[in-house]
């Protein structure tokens, strides 16, 4: 094994998206209502269930309850779902 001067876990390895499937599974398998959304605009962090959502047949616009900025938009095209991220700083699993 090589020496890793950058720190305990060494330099970043360049791999592909398969490598993060295991860690993202935790996020994607979490019920969306409890996923914690951090607003990139005002910094507020709250469960997705508390966000303001404007919904119609095609789209759901999800806004920060604190500053009203659009966090993300969910678009529906028949069976496909498209997520467009606008002002999300982070998504995280809920506190244990």
């Amino acid at each position, binding site marked *: 094994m090589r020496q890793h001067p950058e720190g305990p876990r060494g330099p970043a390895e360049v791999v592909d998206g398969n490598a993060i499937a295991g860690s993202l599974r935790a996020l*994607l*398998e*979490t*019920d969306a*209502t*409890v996923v914690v959304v951090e607003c990139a605009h005002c910094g507020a962090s709250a*469960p*997705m*269930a*508390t966000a303001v959502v404007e919904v119609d*047949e095609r789209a759901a616009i999800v806004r920060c309850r604190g500053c009203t900025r659009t966090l993300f938009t969910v678009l529906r095209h028949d069976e496909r779902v498209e997520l467009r991220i606008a002002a999300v700083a982070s998504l995280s699993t809920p506190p244990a």
Partner: protein
Amino acid sequence: MSAPRWMPARVAEAVPSTAHARVLRLAVPGWPGNLPGQHLDVRLTAEDGYQAERSYSIASSGPGELVELAVDEVVDGEVSHYLVRVVEPGDAMEVKGPLGAYFVWDAGDPSPVQLVAGGSGIVPLLAMLRARVAGGVGGPFRLLYSVRSAADAMYRDEIDALASGDIEVTWAYTRAAPDGWGGRVGRLGPTEVAAATWPPDQKPLTYVCGPTGFVEAAADALVAAGHDPLRVRTERFGGR
């Protein structure tokens, strides 16, 4: 756990609840069961292929393939009109669920629970009440249920029968009170909310559900009265 998919459902029973609401029991083969407070999405498909999806709370909880919904007809509402006036036992639709891990009650939590319902917002809260009574565990419950008049209350008889001992029920009437009722008639204000709910120092877990405007007003009153906003969980059904 895998992501829920659309599942075929059939109406097993359709029972009138008020003059403008119905209780529907859906048979859903393979339904994995649900927690008190969860909801599902209903998808209706017309003969020409047009589809409509809406969310409905589940009045039942626990294992079993029979899922109870209660739908209140919204003026000019497309899906609620169909579910309240048109659908019959035997009719098919699709459901996706159970959904939501935020607006659920955990029977293992001994905190006092405050439920605040406006109109059809009673549905997920009734699931919590039923689970509290059936399980015999959990802290004391209080329900504040705001309706236009006694005749507009969904599950009125069942709720009156549940009220005893660890479960306190306060009715609020916005348009007309029953004969002989001494209270005030009108929308809930901070005074009515404070009088009928646990004081903040009891650190209750509070669930507020109903039309969006009702939920905003009730949740604001609770937070202004000193309740921890993180312990006031809300579910907004839409409309005003």
